[in-house]
């Protein structure tokens, strides 16, 4: 049986950077009340790079929900394969003091770790990720149910 994990990524006290956590919690809630149960794990996480790779060990499939800053409309939800995102050597899915998630996955696979074949990133366009606060901006808050639904749709779709 395929083992899947959904990870809400971000810092819960850094404004819109906390949206990943909020979406993950919503996914958990929706799955719990659904009449079509899904056997998946849902977790919230604050680290990128090697730590995030280590969290993905043991799973066949992973969906990461995160705030994104791509210049699109605030609150816009996007889906991309990690393989299609640029592999930069700094910031964000990169941990501050190690490496990018893509490179970390390469390290894990080389050293024999069981890691997901596919990593999908569900992004929510963020407005404020440099100011501390527990609130999301309204447009980002409004996008949480939609982003959660995209995650559930992805999970129900066979790879």
């Amino acid at each position, binding site marked *: 049986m395929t083992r899947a994990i959904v990870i809400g*990524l*971000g*810092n*819960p*006290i*850094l404004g*819109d*950077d906390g949206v*990943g956590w909020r979406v993950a919690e919503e996914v958990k809630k929706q799955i719990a009340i659904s009449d079509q149960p899904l056997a998946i794990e849902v977790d919230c996480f*604050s*680290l*990128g*790079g*090697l*730590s995030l790779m*280590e969290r993905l060990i043991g799973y066949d499939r992973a969906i990461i929900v*995160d*705030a*994104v*800053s*791509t210049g699109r409309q605030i609150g816009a939800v996007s889906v991309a394969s990690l393989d299609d*995102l*640029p592999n*930069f*050597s*700094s*910031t*964000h*899915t*990169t*941990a*501050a*003091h*190690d*490496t990018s998630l893509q*490179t*970390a996955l*390469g*390290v*894990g696979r*080389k*050293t*024999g*770790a069981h890691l997901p074949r596919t990593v999908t*990133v569900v*992004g929510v366009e*963020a407005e404020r*990720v*440099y*100011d*501390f*606060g527990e609130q999301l901006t309204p447009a980002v808050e409004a996008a949480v149910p939609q982003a959660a639904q995209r995650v559930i749709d992805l999970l129900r779709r066979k790879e």
Partner: protein
Amino acid sequence: MQRITIDPITRLEGHGKIEIFLNEEGDVANTYFQIPELRGFERFCVGRPVEEMPLLTNRICGVCPEAHHMAAAKAADAVYHVDPPPTAKKLRELLYSAFYVTDHTTHFYALGGPDFVMGPDAPVAERNILGVIHKVGLEIGGKVIQCRKYGHTVVEMIGGRKVHPCTSIPGGLTKGITEEQRLEIEKMGRWAIEFAQFSLKVFGDIVLGNKAYVDLILGDIYTHRTYSMGLVDADNRVNFYDGKVSVVDPEGKRMGTYAPNEYTDWIAEHVEPWTYLKFPYLKKIGWKGFVDGKDSGVYMATPLSRLNASDGMATPLAQAEYEKFYSTLGGKPVHQRLATHWARLIELLYAAERWVELATDPEITSPNFHTVPTEKPTEGVGIVEAPRGTLTHHYTTDERGVLTKVNLIVGTTNNYAPISMSIKKAAESFIRKGVVVSEGALNRVEMAFRAYDPCFGCATHSLPGQMPLQITIRDAEGKEVEVLRQYC
């Protein structure tokens, strides 16, 4: 004036941006290292109970949550005027030693090491941990992952969860460890000592065995004669968790030591118009600008400065490496900033040895891990050595323990002035007329600050979060002459 921008810096969190201004002759006129700061943390904390701080502050940063957790716990102890029992202090230090092993390992193999293992002129796509594995061998990758796993396991056993510990409260900890856990922690610590020795051997073979690298380390480009700072125990030996802060001058003479609650007598902050981040300096010496020397209040707080500011290491294997370090580099203090990478590995060995020392301490499994606070809370300061510099938390509360004022001086901030000076000096050496601005040369500018292991932004994970490295060169009128990109 020409202008070169390195934006952003590879392998560094937080959107750091270096601007290098050239004069008419094409020489470096000035450099500016700008850091967009995360805003409002100190304000965000006001109005919350002080005992929440060990949980809240470890969310400031995705790199060293354990350091913030410890500094916050110690500051909260001080606010409540409570002295935790020896077992609590030892358990906290044990957790912290395991964290140090993890953090220093990760820095050496993933961040600082690739410059040496792969070489400063290697293509940027290869200057990472995968490149290191490719060159040194697959075994090394497995060891790094194993080391991190052990470190995280100890943090979870004592701290209640991985990475973001939650068990420190005013007066000690909410839980202790069992004998079974202690045995496992000891076993992992013994493995960590071997791994640290292996890492020092890798450094010796690859870096010290290569004359070009030794010349690079010992050269003038990466040398600054500033004051050094570091936490020391009662015997003036390096300690990460507790003690007084020692300050030595550029000749290595100890200027003095200060207790956490005396920090405002020693440290002041200078403001520059081009950056929001302040520049801490030694108050007793004064701010004289971005200059070296005994008359300048600029100091560094790094693994290198911790060794300089101490009289030695408190564990035998690390002490032997400490002695070798100074005899190889021509005595104490050492001012060559690239030697920080070596100092970091000596600290790695010390942390692993300390891990085992504490895991075999007869008191470590005692159930006496908390002292109930009975005094009225007021004000307190907690200081630990974060891997990247002395970390100070200062809290003031009302009589209920609700925060009314918070001041933090984080590890990297201490080094903002010396980092800026190192960048300028490196730029002057590699960017001048007749010298082509190549990726390798610019990486050497980056190496100047990478040695400090700086961390400015914290735990933001928005995607994709990164623009390609872009270098813009402008002529005297500000017109764009050439644009170089690394990732396009």
